[in-house]
């Protein structure tokens, strides 16, 4: 019974506005007279930001392409016709046709390979981001909230992983696998990449831990798990989301780079990075085999970066 009153009181505390107001984001937007919260204010900003709209649209487009590549092309990315199509030049007029972007050294449709390659890039990017966010937030929150030797231990561990050069580490791990599936690549990158989010989460939690509403919740006898989930996590989420969105673009670039170095997804997989690596041999005679997948990688990374940038600007009141 006393527990009930405690909860009511705690919810009315000022710091909680962020968590409760998060619901507003899905709403149509704030009423003009209402004081805007962090999230609804951010949404208000984002809807008017052309960068956000353009990048959001591109991301939706890429996601659809990754999920249903058949919608975009009837050609197969693996059908090779050396005799007819060896290094065929792009036909810019033939929009959405198999020969739109020309053919590669095996006589395969580059357009089809672009469409089917989206799945590898996007799933690695999203997969790694989800994994590092979960691992990083968990470790960061535990370290930041409990402090003391727990923090020392976890922070040292973070330092250890931070000390491993990311690209070199990924090269070493992936090099030892013969069958590099999407899951293997995700696990390898997540294993090395969670430190950034952990640091951000730890910093945010340490700041929030000292704020009055958390102290008040503690004084009112709220349990540790309740404080962490209801009070700290919602308020620490903004910086974590920002770092994660921006990092997503980086992971897509990392996957492509590793494919380029020959340790990305296996040769049988259709991936942009792999196509760039194979196109390398023809850089002089048929630059399009290299340039088109390169541009695709860049556009995808750029979309996620712009998206993350817009979200960061909207969520960081200091930048206003």
């Amino acid at each position, binding site marked *: 019974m006393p527990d009930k009153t405690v909860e009511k009181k705690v919810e009315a505390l000022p710091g909680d506005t962020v968590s409760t107001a998060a619901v507003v984001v899905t709403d149509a937007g704030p009423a003009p007279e209402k004081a805007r919260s962090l999230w609804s204010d951010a949404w208000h900003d984002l809807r008017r930001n052309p960068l956000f709209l353009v990048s959001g649209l591109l991301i939706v487009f890429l996601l659809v392409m990754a999920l249903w590549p058949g919608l975009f092309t009837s050609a197969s990315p693996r059908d090779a016709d050396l005799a007819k199509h060896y290094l065929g030049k792009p036909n810019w007029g033939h929009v959405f046709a198999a020969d739109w972007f020309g053919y590669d050294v095996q006589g395969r449709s580059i357009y089809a390979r672009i469409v089917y390659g989206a799945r590898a890039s996007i799933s690695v990017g999203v997969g790694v981001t989800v994994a590092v966010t979960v691992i990083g937030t968990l470790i960061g929150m535990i370290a930041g909230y409990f402090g003391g030797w727990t923090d020392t231990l976890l922070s040292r561990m973070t*330092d250890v992983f931070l000390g491993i*050069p990311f690209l070199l580490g990924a090269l070493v791990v992936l090099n030892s696998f013969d069958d590099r599936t999407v899951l293997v690549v995700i696990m390898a990158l997540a294993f090395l990449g969670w430190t950034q989010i952990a640091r951000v989460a730890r910093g945010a939690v340490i700041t929030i831990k000292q704020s009055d509403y958390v102290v008040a919740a503690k004084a009112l006898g709220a349990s540790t798990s309740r404080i962490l989930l209801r009070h700290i996590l919602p308020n620490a989420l903004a910086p974590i989301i920002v770092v994660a969105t921006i990092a997503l673009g980086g992971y897509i670039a990392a996957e492509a780079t590793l494919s380029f170095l020959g340790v990305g997804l296996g040769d049988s997989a259709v991936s942009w990075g792999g196509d760039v690596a194979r196109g390398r041999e023809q850089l002089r005679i048929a630059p399009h085999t290299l340039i088109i997948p390169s541009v695709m990688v860049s556009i995808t990374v750029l979309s996620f970066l712009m998206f993350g940038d817009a979200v960061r600007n909207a969520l960081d009141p200091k930048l206003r």
Partner: protein
Amino acid sequence: MGRYVARRLLQMIPVFIGSTLIIFCMMYALPGDPVRAMMGDQAYDPTVVASIKKDLGLDQPLLQQYVNYMVGLAQGDFGTQVASKQPIADIIAGAFPVTLRLTLFAFTFVTLVGIGLGVVAGLRPDTLRDRGLLTLTLVLVSMPSFVLGFLMQYLFAFKWQVTTPTVTDTTDFGQLALPAMVLASLSLAYVARLTRTSIAENLRADYIRTAVAKGLPRRRVIGVHLMRNSLIPVVTFLGIEIGSLMTGAIVTEGIFNVRGVGFEVYEALTRREGATVVGIASLLVLIYLATSLIVDLLYAVLDPRIRYA
């Protein structure tokens, strides 16, 4: 200060051991075998393989191998390559200066161009100039270095024939310019963005308003009051970036065929020469730890509010 440095150095030891141990385990505990890689596709005799392994100490438990390796490393013995029988120390000594030159060249680019662009954008936040430069940096960040590398190689070497497509002489700074620019691009974009944000933020600080109210000329307000404060986070970031530039060199060296550390790592990896990879990785970890200590000390020098005891 002295006590702080001593404490930090002590703290670095477990971090160094941890990082290198993880790299070591990744190299040796995961599938793949240097001796079999050396033999290639040839039919091989398992007893021969076993005896070579025994010679190299590869049959011992992993942790024992690691301890042996570290003891050797502490005495400056990086081990010997399985295939070429060359001492790894010699390989590193040959490749390291090349990568160092490339890195420092790139670092100069990052510092000069990155800070320059950031200042230009940050002084007039939210103008067309600022937006344009921000977009440019976003484009740079979104181009993985192999994409940019090939693009530059295609344009400068093949299309316009201004430079050679690959680096034949690593002491020729003219030849190194293109790879250095490619290597620098990512960090350069980050530094520009960080400088821009820092400048734009400090521009609105109360003490800048005070400096204006004191009647200081604009160049003094910017040069002394704004810069001094805004560049503190940039300097910190720059220090850490030296380490990432050196690893980033793996890709750049691959594209431009520069025979540096990255090139050797790549070679060693395909031949599963664990000792070479771990040796170079240990060196990179050491550089990372050293630069982060220097950066922290520099931070205390630049910002009087930070005091280490």
